[in-house]
């Protein structure tokens, strides 16, 4: 889901992170406000595909992002179909799917430090209210880095349980995952301190 930066020299790669985030916000708003229109979704879909091509990424990363979003799509669709007409449920889910894929395009074409700098700049006016922009930027970076690490813990736990012939149950999976994640966060805190981040 969180696409990692793919080096390139396209217009999208060269556009400042802040501008990309603003355009993304405008597009998201436009998709939300014109949701009732028949052509909104097909047009937004075509625009998204065109942006992926413009970024020189091709269709494969786009398909990967769509595939990564399958569980969100499934949960959204199933829960909405129960209460809403099928067409409305499909439209709502389609909108969210396009927004997810557009958001991924930002991370695919922007280095994380550039995103962090843009976040810190955007949050700078809130410093007077006690907000620490650098800490929020770091928090975002750590979250992105921690996802594959915690994914690795989950794989290790599943493999260890299978190796011992134990059935994979929610409680025997979640508790060790939490313990390993907390231990990792402790170690990470020490490493940050050691690198001079207080």
């Amino acid at each position, binding site marked *: 889901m969180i696409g990692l930066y793919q080096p390139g020299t396209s217009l999208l790669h060269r556009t400042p992170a802040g501008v990309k985030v603003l355009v993304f916000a405008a597009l998201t708003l436009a998709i939300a406000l014109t949701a009732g229109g028949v052509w909104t979704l097909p047009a937004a879909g075509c625009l998204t595909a065109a942006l992926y091509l413009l970024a020189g990424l091709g269709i494969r990363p786009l398909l990967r992002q769509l595939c990564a979003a399958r569980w969100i799509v499934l949960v959204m669709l199933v829960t909405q179909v129960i209460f809403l007409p099928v067409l409305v449920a499909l439209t709502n889910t389609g909108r969210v799917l396009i927004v997810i894929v557009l958001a991924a395009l930002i991370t695919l074409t922007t280095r994380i430090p550039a995103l962090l700098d843009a976040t810190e700049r955007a949050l700078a006016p809130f410093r007077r209210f006690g907000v620490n922009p650098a800490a929020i930027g770091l928090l975002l*970076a750590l979250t992105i880095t921690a996802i594959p690490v915690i994914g690795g813990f989950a794989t290790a736990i599943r493999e260890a349980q299978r190796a011992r012939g134990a059935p994979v149950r929610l409680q025997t999976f979640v508790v060790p995952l939490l313990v390993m994640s907390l231990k990792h966060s402790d170690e990470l805190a020490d*490493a940050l301190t050691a690198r001079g981040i207080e």
Partner: protein
Amino acid sequence: MNGKLIIQFESVSVEFAGRIALRDVSIALDAQRIGVIGSNGSGKSTFARMLNGLVTPTSGAVKVHGLDPVRDGKRLRRHVGFIFSNPDAQIVMPTVTEDLAFSLRGRGLTRSQVAERVASTLESIDLVVHADAPTHSLSSGQKQLLALGAILIGEPDLVVADEPTALLDAANSRKIGNRLLDEIPQQLVLVTHDLRLAARCDIVLRFESGKLHEHGDPRSVVARYERDHA
């Protein structure tokens, strides 16, 4: 901070929840490569972690080049790089280049200065071809090299490595060990279970049950440690 860092421990004890981790340690060190050995739980990691204020002494005084790692921690950490045994826990940013650049944040360097230092560090740790690779896709050895690079790019005066080869295979252990012992110009404190690495230091400290059991000539200290644990 020029010249050799001098590490001074004066009657230092550390207690965690009623358990004594380090008992009355006094020593002054100015050797270039300092090896630290001992059994699990002997206090060697506690000793190392005190060098940049990760652990606070319960009693006694620690000085690293005249600075108190607890009181002057922030200042001292710019001069003391710390490498942990688990490289996953030290990598902060999603890609190799970004993680190296992260170490230079807040140092007032221009973008081109940062790019220059990142490029030369990538070369020195043999990770040029992985510059834009996601950090989680690296092997354990490459991750530990990255962790070392992230420390060295800050140009510290002292490198403290706490069992840096514990999670590595033989080839990567050798690579990291050689890099630390033979190639970096910094003063080094190397906590290790690898007695061959310890024997290559200039002085070895041996901890047992929280006490500094002995220190001195590496080959003699390592030989006695091997004999006692045979």
